[in-house]
């Protein structure tokens, strides 16, 4: 494979307003991704999820999307036929959403959902073999009793376990890119740590690219290699994850400062003073 896994330049997503005009929710986002862990952080409404969804080609029908470049492994996502995109989704790009309660089929046993995913990718795999792969994968994401979970319905497993099932379902297809949209926000901190370990191990061992979308700056700085900070549909800062504490953009600094810390000051928390200048189009901050 040559070049980058993901190339995005001047991505714009707009939605139609009541008066017929379009309001841009993503305004000129650009970045590239290799085989690494890239974090996208920002508040709700900053456009981070829409950016991830654009790459999957799963924006709502009402969205108007344009980009100078929107490529996954050389495939132009905007002009690719629906058939090509369908093949990419699932087999080469996987997505994990925030809450497994809503992303698993509630009336289908967990195991059958994973088997379905395996056989959709390769119909030549027999049912028995697919079941074995599914159980092995459940074991790989550290589910202690994979055979019980295989037969369980989604409501019979806990949130952390459901999220591991989602990860297993994505990973059986061995995607090259995983887009994880707030994959641990609905989980307890201790479960979160376990899910992150699993993701980390898989990214490293399988040499995948990971886009990790989160509102949690601390988490992203610990977990990712590189971080993109989004504000009002734009990338305002791009920084090595370990240097996030020294971020230069006042928005990033403001977000870091307004978080209470276990050992932090007890004075009133600094609140974010939003400078209207942050809204000006930068054409992609560097």
């Amino acid at each position, binding site marked *: 494979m040559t070049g980058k896994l993901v190339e995005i330049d001047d991505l714009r997503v707009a939605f139609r307003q009541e008066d017929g005009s379009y309001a841009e929710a993503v305004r000129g986002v650009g970045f590239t991704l290799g085989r690494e862990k890239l974090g996208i952080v920002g508040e709700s409404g900053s456009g981070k999820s829409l950016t991830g969804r654009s790459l999957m080609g799963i924006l709502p029908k009402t969205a108007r999307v344009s980009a100078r470049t929107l490529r996954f492994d050389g495939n132009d996502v905007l002009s690719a036929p629906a058939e090509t995109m369908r093949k990419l989704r699932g087999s080469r790009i996987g997505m994990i959403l925030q809450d497994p309660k809503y992303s698993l089929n509630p009336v289908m046993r967990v195991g059958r959902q994973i088997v379905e995913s395996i056989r959709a990718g390769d119909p030549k795999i027999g049912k028995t073999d697919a079941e074995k792969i599914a159980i092995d994968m459940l074991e790989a994401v550290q589910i202690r009793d994979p055979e019980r979970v295989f037969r369980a319905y989604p409501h019979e497993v806990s*949130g952390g376990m459901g999220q591991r099932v989602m990860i297993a379902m994505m990973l059986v297809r061995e995607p090259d890119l995983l887009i994880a949209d707030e994959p641990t926000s609905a989980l307890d901190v201790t479960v979160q740590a376990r899910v992150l370990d699993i993701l980390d191990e898989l990214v490293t061992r399988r040499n995948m690219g990971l886009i990790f979308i989160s509102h949690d700056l601390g988490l992203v700085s610990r977990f990712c290699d590189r971080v993109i900070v989004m504000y009002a549909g734009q990338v305002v800062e791009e920084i090595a994850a370990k240097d996030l504490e020294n971020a230069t953009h006042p928005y990033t600094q403001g977000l870091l400062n307004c978080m209470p810390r276990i050992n932090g000051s007890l004075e009133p928390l600094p609140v974010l003073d939003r400078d209207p200048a942050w809204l000006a189009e930068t054409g992609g901050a560097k």
Partner: protein
Amino acid sequence: MIEIENLNVWFGEGPDRVDAVKNVSISVGEGESFGLVGESGSGKSTILRAAMGLAPTWSGRISIGGIDARSGDRRQFLKTVQMVFQDPYASLHPRYVIGEAIAEPMRINKIPDSEARTDRLLEAIGLTPAHRFRYPHELSGGQRQRVAVARALSLDPKVLLLDEPTSALDVSIQAEILNLLNRLKKELGLTFMIVSHDLAVVSYMCERLAVMAHGEIVEVMDRETLRSGEAKEQYTRDLIAASV
């Protein structure tokens, strides 16, 4: 101000019985902020729900402001203690404008002059009287949570029970709400009981806290102990380690 003794809460009966809270005793003084932390399913929210009468089967004693939750005057009890829920969208009536939502407890309790009080409450939480005519969907998440706080304060309670009051909000908005709660607490002399999975929030807000697991209190400690990392129990130390 808050006395909880040997509280047990369970759901279901016979073989289906699940014990959500087991033999919990907590005492919170006037003007204090007490935190309840633990993982999901540890029973922390259930304690607040039992106090408010939202968990039907419980035993033990709950008394707030000297009024017994079971045998005391219900109206008087609810004038003393009010609750703020996690999700401000789910806890505000979608077809009530903000003014109605805030004034409803006053109307039920026949408190006069509710319109003027609603305006004052809106100002106290950092909104304006013009917001009275807005619907919840017209407000941001942070503004909705402010409205939930205003409604909880409309009966002039002494105690607020706060169930994950900021976990649905962005950190920038969380900071505003936490500052607001601390200011109101000081101005109105309130007592708080705050449920949170976020130890940093609890460390910032609460003088004392209880760590819960599997329906039981693992450890009660003060803020200094939490901040110095000298928690006695391994479970608490693991929780702190996973939080920083």
